[in-house]
C-alpha cells in the first residue's frame, strides 16, 4: 500500500510528464524496504561514525581505496581533504555514505555512484557524475563540461556555472544549476530534468528525445527538435520543492522558468522494462 501511495503522490506531483507508455521511469524507494537501498556486498555504515584523511600526497587509486576501506570499517561520514583536482575520485560508490571533498575534483569525479550523498567544496572538472544512478551530489563552485552525462537518477547540483553539454544523453534524475550552462546542454537527452537558473548556451536540448529542461535566464538558441512547453502547476510545485531542498530559488519565481521539451517523438525503441517484457512475451 505504501508503495502505491508513493507512486500516486509522485504522479500527482507531475513527476511523470516524460513517461513513455507502459513504463515507469523512476523507482520509488521506501525507507522501510531495506532491499531498495542496498547492493550485494554493500557495507553497513553508521553516519555518526566519522573519519577524515588528507589526500594531498595520495594518487587516485589510493584515495578511492581508502574510502572503501573506511566504509568497510563502518564509517558513514568521510571527509577527504586536499583532493587537489585529481581525476576519478569518489567513483563507483554503491553504498549509503556521507562523503565530503574539501576542495576541487578533476575529471570524471563521482561517476557511476548509487546511494551516497556527496558534497564538494570546490569545482569539478569534465564529466562529473557520469552515469550516476542515485544519491545526491552538491558542488559549491563551478563545474566543467559534460556535467551529469548519461546520468540515470539522483540529484546533481552545482551552485555556480557549468560548461557545455550538460546532461548529454541523460536518462533520468535531476540536474540543478545555480548559474549558467554552456552550449548543447541536454543534447540527446532521453529522460530526467535539467533546471538552469541562469542563462543557457546555444543549441539547448539539441536532438532531445524526451525529458524536460527549465531555464531561468536567456536561452541563446534552441537545438533541433527542442521546443517551448507549458508549465503546469504541479510541475511548478515540484520545482519549488526541489530547489528549496538545496537552498536554491528561481530569481523570478518558478512560474517564470522557461520550459523546453522535445518537439518530436524521436525515440523508437522498446519501452518495456525487462520485467514487463517477460510478462508480455
Amino acid at each position, binding site marked *: 500500500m505504501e508503495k502505491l501511495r508513493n507512486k500516486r503522490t509522485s504522479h500527482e506531483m507531475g513527476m511523470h510528464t516524460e513517461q513513455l507508455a507502459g513504463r515507469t521511469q523512476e523507482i520509488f524507494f521506501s525507507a522501510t524496504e531495506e532491499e531498495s537501498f542496498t547492493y550485494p556486498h554493500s557495507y553497513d555504515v553508521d553516519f555518526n561514525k566519522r573519519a577524515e584523511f588528507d589526500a594531498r600526497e595520495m594518487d587516485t587509486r589510493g584515495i578511492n581505496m581508502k574510502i572503501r576501506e573506511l566504509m568497510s570499517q563502518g564509517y558513514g561520514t568521510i571527509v577527504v581533504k586536499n583532493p587537489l583536482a585529481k581525476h576519478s575520485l569518489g567513483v563507483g560508490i554503491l553504498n549509503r555514505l556521507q562523503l565530503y571533498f574539501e576542495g576541487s575534483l578533476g575529471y570524471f569525479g563521482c561517476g557511476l555512484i548509487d546511494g551516497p550523498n556527496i558534497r564538494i567544496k570546490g569545482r569539478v572538472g569534465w564529466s562529473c557524475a557520469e552515469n550516476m544512478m542515485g544519491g545526491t551530489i552538491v558542488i559549491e563552485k563551478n563545474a566543467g563540461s559534460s556535467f551529469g552525462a548519461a546520468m540515470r537518477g539522483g540529484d546533481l547540483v552545482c551552485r555556480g*556555472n557549468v560548461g557545455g553539454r550538460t546532461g548529454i544523453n541523460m536518462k533520468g534524475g535531476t540536474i540543478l544549476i545555480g548559474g549558467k550552462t554552456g552550449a548543447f546542454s541536454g543534447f540527446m537527452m532521453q529522460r530526467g530534468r535539467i533546471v538552469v537558473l541562469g542563462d543557457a548556451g546555444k543549441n539547448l536540448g539539441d536532438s532531445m528525445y524526451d525529458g524536460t529542461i527549465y531555464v531561468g535566464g536567456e536561452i541563446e538558441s534552441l537545438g533541433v527538435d527542442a521546443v517551448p512547453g507549458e508549465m503546469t502547476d504541479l510541475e511548478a510545485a515540484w520545482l519549488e520543492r526541489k530547489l528549496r531542498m538545496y537552498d536554491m530559488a528561481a530569481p523570478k519565481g518558478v512560474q517564470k522558468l522557461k520550459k523546453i521539451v522535445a518537439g518530436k517523438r524521436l525515440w523508437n525503441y522498446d519501452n518495456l522494462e525487462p520485467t514487463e517484457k517477460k510478462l508480455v512475451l
Partner: protein
Amino acid sequence: MCGIAGLIHRGSRGDIGREMTRMLQSLKHRGPDSTGYALYGVPTANELVLRFKVAEQEDMAKGFDIHRKVKERKAEIDRRIAELGGRILKEETATEYAYRYRIAFDGDRRKLADYIEDVEGGEILSLGTALELIKDLGDAKRVSEQYRIQGFQGTHAIGHTRMATESDVDIRSAHPYWAYPFADVSVVHNGQLTNYWGNRRALERKGHRFMSNCDSELIAVYLADKMNEGVQLEEAMRGSIDKLDGVFTYLVATSDSLGMAKDTMAAKPMVLYEGDEFIAMASEEVAIRSVFPTEIDTFDPYDGEVRVWKN
C-alpha cells in the same frame, strides 16, 4: 589528446621556468611524446635571443658523422649571422644539437631567419627580444633538466605536452610554434584542424613558410599573417574562430600579452584561474593546482570565447 598550459604575472616577474615545469609535468598523462615551453623573459634593448637547432634528437644516434655535421652546420649559421651584419654577444649550448644565442642585429629578421633555416638541419625555434622557445622529446622534467629551465625569471609563459596524432614524434612537430617571422609570438594548441591543407596552401601562396606538417603550426602562421596586415592580436584570434574549422583550444603569447581561444563547440578543455596578481590556465585543473595548492576559484571558458591578458 595533448595538454596546454599558460600563466602570466600581472605587473611582476616570477620563476616561470619552475612554475611552467610543474604545470606541464602534471599534464604528462595527456601527452608524453614531447614537451615545449615558450618563456618570456626580460627584454634587453637592441638584443635578440635566438634559439635554434641543427639536428633532431634522433639524428644524434645515426652514424659517427653526425657530430661533425652538427659542428659544420653551427659554424655555417655563425658565418651567415655575421654575413648579414649580426654579432653574437653570448653563446650557450642547450644540448649537443640546440643552441641559445644573444645577438646584436638590426637588419631584416625575416631574411635572417630564412638564411639560417637554409642551412641543412637548421631550424629557428624562436627569435625575439623576450621569447625563448624550448622544446624536445620527453616529459617536462626531462626537458627542464636538459635545458636548465628551472629558475628562468620572466613575466609569462605557455607550454605544451604532446601526444602525436597527425605528425611525427620529433622536435619539429613539437609545440610551441613560433609565429614566423614575428618576433616574440608563439602558439600552443590542443585539438585538430580539419581545414588545414586549404588554409596552408593559401598562406604558402602569400609567402609564409611551414616547417612541419602539424596542424597546430597553421594557427601560428595564420595569426602572424593577420598581424602582418595590421590586425590586432585579439581581433586576429576572433577571426580564427570562424576561419579555422575543427575542434581546438589554443593559447598565444606575445612580448606583453597572453591570449586563449576556444572553438565554437568548446570541444577541447580549458580551465582558468584569474587572480589579481597571477593568471593561470590549463587543459586540466590539476595543472593549476600544482602551482596553487590552496583553494581558489576556477572556471571553464565557453564556446567561441577569446580572452587576452596583458602583463
